[in-house]
């Protein structure tokens, strides 16, 4: 029993790190992704290609590698002059990585709105911004809810990658127990993820239901 409580405490402490990374990444990457998506849809070609290249590199390389780069390269490059601490490095890598993924979802959502919706707004004398906020935005949100939900659930599990730069998150703690012969905490830690993802799934199906008042 004492062992169970101590394991539970350890895992909870670790899961706190996961939740922290999760929350900050979401808060920053959701809006940042919108900025990136606007860049990738820009009519100004250099900006468009720069953004597209950025998204290609971020999506085309492992998040683990990106964590290494953000954590290890600055001190090497500045010969010890500058370094992020572990959590800063993790957050930077996660935010950039997820902003790139979100930006593609936003872009897909925005570009899927038929041209006729904008034109209907124009012939009614609406401004671009009025069309965006009053006509397009909700339709985009409806279309991206499912893919964003998917991505967010992936993020929950990805947070444990932070262990590769030695952030004491839940899986790292569970693995430490296995080193001393305790295997079950590994499975126990799975329950944390399952519970968290279960809540998110409920939340997203609630949002989808809310947006189900119209079709199209």
């Amino acid at each position, binding site marked *: 029993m004492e062992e169970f409580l101590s394991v539970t405490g350890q895992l909870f402490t670790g899961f706190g790190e996961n939740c922290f990374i999760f929350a900050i990444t979401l808060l920053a990457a959701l809006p940042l992704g919108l900025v990136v998506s606007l860049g990738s849809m820009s009519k100004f070609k250099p900006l468009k290609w720069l953004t597209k290249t950025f998204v290609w590199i971020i999506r085309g390389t492992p998040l683990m590698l990106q964590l290494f780069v953000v954590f290890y390269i600055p001190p090497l490059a500045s010969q010890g002059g500058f370094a992020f601490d572990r959590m800063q490095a993790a957050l930077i890598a996660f935010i950039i990585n997820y902003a790139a993924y979100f930006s593609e979802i936003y872009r897909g959502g925005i570009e899927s709105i*038929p041209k*006729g*919706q904008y*034109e*209907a707004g*124009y*012939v*009614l*004398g*609406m*401004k*671009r911004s*009025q069309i965006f906020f*009053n*006509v397009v935005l*909700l*339709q985009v949100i*409806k279309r991206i809810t499912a893919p964003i939900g998917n991505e967010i659930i992936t993020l929950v599990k990805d947070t444990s990658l932070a262990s590769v730069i030695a952030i004491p998150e839940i899986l790292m703690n569970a693995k430490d127990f296995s080193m001393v012969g305790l295997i079950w905490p590994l499975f126990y830690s799975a329950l944390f993820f399952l519970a968290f993802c279960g809540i998110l799934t409920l939340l997203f199906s609630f949002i989808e239901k809310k947006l189900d*008042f*119209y*079709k*199209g």
Partner: protein
Amino acid sequence: MALLQVEGIKKSFGKTQVLKDISFSLEKGEVLAIIGSSGSGKTTLLRCLNFLETPNSGKISVNNTVLFDGDTKNNMTDSQIRKNRLHFGLVFQSFNLFPQYTAIENVMLAPKLHNKKLKNGANYKGLTKPGEIKALIREEALALLDKVGLSDKIDSYPCNLSGGQQQRVAIARALALNPDVLCFDEPTSALDPELTGEVLNVIRGLKSSDSTMIVVTHEIEFARDVADKIIFMSDGVIEEEGTPEEVIGNPRSPRTQAFLSRFNG
């Protein structure tokens, strides 16, 4: 003096010239039907009138005010273009209703946005209080939906309406801004045959209430019946123009004859 005056409109997309010198005029309360084969530039002409496309040259005037002049077109500001658009309404082939709004919300959206923040001194039909303006806009929207025969569908979303009903909401939505000229681009082409009648009847009804309209259509019988004036377009030019009896009853141009013979066969 004519309500609408179109002079020498030309429009190219890249190297293809789609409109080659289009001129016509329309009196207040007149209905103009435009017929012509696919690709002759009918949609492009309506889009130019509604400033969805910018003509390369030509002139568009409404009520003796020049809205567009090909020589000075580059000086048009966004807000000028928006103001110009309000002289025209456009009903699309594919309705383009806003799916997240009910029928009445679709009709009310633009008037509400235009009268949201009235600057000092401005009013909406004599009203200045936001609450009263909103109530009036709603009343007007109800009247319009009644006019198109949809009083019982005001709170329906487009996804729950038939094509004919959706198109009638789209007509009410266009009417809500009181355009000088209401344009229709093949308003019944996307509809099942049994639904075209209800939409055409609404347009007939508008004619009797003195709306000025331009209707692009493939419904030759309807054009003959409702139009005061018919234009047959072919290859970006007005091939023939006149009363329904002249253009449909007695076409002079061989191209018009060939086009019409397909409908009588």
